[in-house]
Structure formats: C-alpha cells, structure tokens
C-alpha cells in the first residue's frame, strides 16, 4: 500500500532524511523507531504529502503523492505529531468537520462519527470544546479524526505520546486490531510498543535506515541475544565464573551481581551455540542451588542503543 523509494529531504543544507526506502503492505504494522531528530516526523510528513520531498518518491495505494495528491490523501488517515485539533470547536464539531471534508455526508457521516466516538471513548467529552480537553482526550480526538473515513493507510506520529498507561494499552490494541486490514506506519520511541503492536520495525538514525526487520529479528542483533543468565546461592562468584568458562560453548562470562551469597552471572555464547547454551550451563551447574536459569531473547533497547549510538562514541573518541 505504501511504497517509499529513495526519499530525501533537505532543510537548507541539512539532510533531514537521506535516501529512505521501504514498503508497507496491507496487514502490516510498521514501527518507526529512532532517536529524536532522526527524521521520523519528516518522513511521515512526506508520506502524507504535507512536505514535498527533495528527491525520491512516495506512492500510496498506487498513487504518487506528488502527482496525484488528492487520490493518495483520500486513502490516508494521518495523526500528526502533538495531535493538533481546532481548539475553538467541540469534539463533535471537529469530527463532523473532518468527516465532511473527507466526503462523508448525511447518514454516512453520522455513522462514521458515532463509530469513532465509540472506538476512541470520546462520548464523555463529545460536546466539550477541544481547548478544554486533557492531553489524553485531545490526542484521542485527533486519533479519531484519522480513522473517521476508515482509511486503508494509517500514518500515526507518536500515537501514544502523552497518554496514561491504560490509554496507551488501548491505543496499541486498537492499532494491532486495525493492522489486520490496513497498512499502518507509526512512530514511537517507546520500544515496548514495537513488541506490543508491530509486525515489523525500522530504526532510523540521522535520516538513514539502520535496521529493518521483525521485532524478533531485531532482538537477535542484541549483544545479550542467546546469552544465559544464571543465579545461584551459596557459591563463591570466582568458583561460578571459573567453572562456566570451562563450558565449551561459553565465550565470555560477566558477573552481574554478588550479594548476600546470591551470585548472578551472564554467559555469552560462542558463534554457533544456537540455543544449546542454557542446557550446557544447566548441566555445569547441576550441583549448585540454582535460583534462576534464563536464556535471554535479547533486548530491543540494547539494539536500539548499539545501532544509534556508536557514531557519537566515535566522535567523542576523535
């Protein structure tokens, strides 16, 4: 549904987005990750046709966003960053306006407004002015606007920003449900959201895509992916590390914690261990009192940090 090819955007001499390409099909939820200022919002603004790209192309449902903007925009629902809404209108008035401008009239409009009011839990504030809404309600009002015409493509810029944990949960559930029938892109810097809602994730840094894959694939890139954490009681930490180093699959052992006789270590596998490490360590530690033995799946925030940080580390070194 969404095809982005070699998209680039210059602001003056600054390259905000630098040759980004990806595509999102129906039934996919793409998580768009990256540090602040990485070019997430700029990319989304180009996809929705708000900013014209400096070079490259975006097509939505087969329509080029520059050549056929109206046809393409009809397919898109867009939640901009900070969820703007007309502050002088009531929630009801605002939703009616957006429905009308999306070409919904009469009964169709009434139904559409009713549907999103229910989906986004806006009934309580329906006749309240947008200006007086709390951040969460305002956010949901703008979100409701983006799905009012039941679009095939949803572009959501930080849809859970400023929501409380319950609302975040609801929105993620909503995104996941809608993702079964639509093509969705949403940006976030909350990594747990990627697991909760995405079928695929892209990490973008300084305008370039630095990683692209399913959440599981991304986790694989983590240092700790495949490592095994072991906690035992009543054994000296030196004994633990020495014995673990004798396990053939172990490449490296680090001591995480040693307190009140509880020792926690993490063993990293050699290449090709393929998940057999936990078994091997369990056997090596068979005569100790094991409190915890856990194979790590890898952590997204480790991946995120290691992918988006090394450049700054290099700069500091220079």
């Amino acid at each position, binding site marked *: 549904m969404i095809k982005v090819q070699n998209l680039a955007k210059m602001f003056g001499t600054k390259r905000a987005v630098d040759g980004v390409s990806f595509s999102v099909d129906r039934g996919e939820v793409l998580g768009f990750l990256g540090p602040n200022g990485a070019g997430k919002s700029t990319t989304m*603004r180009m996809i929705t046709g*708000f900013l014209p790209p400096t070079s490259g192309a975006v097509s939505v449902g087969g329509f080029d966003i520059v050549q056929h903007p109206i046809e393409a925009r009809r397919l898109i629902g867009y939640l901009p*960053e900070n969820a703007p809404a*007309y502050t002088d209108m009531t929630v009801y008035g605002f939703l009616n306006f957006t429905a009308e401008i999306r070409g919904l009239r009469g009964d169709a409009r009434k139904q559409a407004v009713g549907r999103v009011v229910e989906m986004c839990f806006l009934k309580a504030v329906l006749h309240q002015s947008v200006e007086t809404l709390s951040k969460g309600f305002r956010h949901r009002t703008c979100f409701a606007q983006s799905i009012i015409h039941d679009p095939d493509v949803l572009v959501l810029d930080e849809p859970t920003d400023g929501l409380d944990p319950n609302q975040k949960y609801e929105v993620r559930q909503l995104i996941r449900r809608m993702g079964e029938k639509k093509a969705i892109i949403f940006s976030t810097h909350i990594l747990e959201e990627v697991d909760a809602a995405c079928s695929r994730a892209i990490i973008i840094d300084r305008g370039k895509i630095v990683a692209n894959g399913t959440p599981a694939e991304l986790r694989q890139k983590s240092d700790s992916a495949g490592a095994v954490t072991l906690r035992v009681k009543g054994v000296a930490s030196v004994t633990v590390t020495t014995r673990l180093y004798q396990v053939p699959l172990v490449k490296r052992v680090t001591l995480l914690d040693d307190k009140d006789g509880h020792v926690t270590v993490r063993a990293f596998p050699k290449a090709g261990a393929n998940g057999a490490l936990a078994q091997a360590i369990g056997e090596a530690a068979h005569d100790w009192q094991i409190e915890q033995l856990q194979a790590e799946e890898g952590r997204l925030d480790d991946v995120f940090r290691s992918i988006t940080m090394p450049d700054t580390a290099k700069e500091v070194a220079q």
Partner: protein
Amino acid sequence: MNAWRNVWTITKRELGAYFTSPLAYVFIVIFLLLCGFFTFFVAHFLEAGEASLVRPFFDWHPWFYLFLVPAVGMRLWAEERRVGTIELLLTMPITAWQAIVGKFLASWLFLALALLLTFPMVLTVRYLGHPDIGIIFTAYIGSWLMAGAYLAVSCITSALTRSQVVSFIISVMVCLFLILAGYPPVINVLEQFAQPWLADLVTSFSVMTHFEGFQKGVLDSRDIIFFLSVIVFSLFTTSVILRTHRAG
C-alpha cells in the same frame, strides 16, 4: 462541484470559529460604534443637513478597515501554523486553493455581515430625507470589495508568520500603503528607490481612488476588476507562501 463543496465546508468551519470566540462580537460592536461615532460626531451628519451617506459614512471606511480587517484576517493562517492544524488541513483530500478560498470567503462573508448591520444608518437617512438609494447601494458594494482587498492582503501576512500580532502589524502597514499609494510623498520616495514601472504599478494600487467611483454611484468595471485582481493576486501569493513554507 466537488471543489465548491470542499470550499464551503472550510468556509462553514471558519465562520463557526469566528462566532465561538468573542472576537466576532467584539469586532462587530467596535465597527458599529466607530461608524456611528464618526458619522454623527466627527462628520456632523445631522448638522450637515444633507441626505447623503457618502461623505459622513463611507468616507471613513478605508480607515476603519485599516485596523479592523487585519484583525479579522490575522488568525486565518497564523493560528493554523501555531497550533499545527495546518498539517491536518493540508493533508486532507482537498487542494490548497480550496482551503485558501474557503478561509477567505468565510472572513469576507463575516465582513459583509458587519457591513449589513450598519443598516440603521440607511434607515436614518431615509427617515430624514430622500437619499439616492442607488449611490448607497454601489457604495456598499465598493466598501465590501475594498474590505475584500484588505482581507486578501491580511491572508498573505497571516500565512507568513505563526504570530497573529506580527501578521496584524504587517498587514496594517501594507494596507496603509494601499491607501497612501496614490499620495505624492509616497510616489516621490518610490521613484528614488524603485524602478519606474514598479513605482507606476504601486501608484495605481491606491484603494482610495478606486473606491471613489463607487461612492459616486458608478459601478466602473475597472474599479471592480482592480479590487478583484488584488484579491486574486493576494490569494495566489498566499498559496505560494504556503507552498514555500512547506518546501523547507
């Protein structure tokens, strides 16, 4: 067909926005008070003993509009940019033109309403004597067209900034220029700094001379075209500004 539907949707929203804030009511009250005050106490309408609204009433309009129209137009785009709703508006399946025209029309209709509410003035002069209704009618038309020209200029300045105050100040200055463009001191300054063709162009921009015809009861197509072309040109400039602003 569909295009005008979109324009009308925008117009309805903007008109609604005027009347949900106190701005509209404050504006109308101030406008009517100013009209009444200047007509009766400054121009001495009653003492003049003349059954005509031209001098005592319509003569003030270019000056009232100088401050009041920028106040009406300043929020059109500046507010959209400040709140960020411009991003919503311009990613809807409408063209930028439809949004620009819709917003302009809303403000222009609002000004028409304010102007229509001065009808007691007409009733008064009808009660006191036998005015030429034709002249009053054409003067109203001219006044409304002039307001539209000011308003279109305010659209430009509003699109330039996200601050309503800045927009207001710049458009007051430009509108003042439109009034004074026909005055000799301004022409002299221009001839020193600008090329002759530009000076000529600016000179022909004075709204005063074009409004004059309407006040004499003449519907001159040149005057009408002048005001309409100021409007079209300004709205076109607005669209260019909005586009370059987005192009980064």
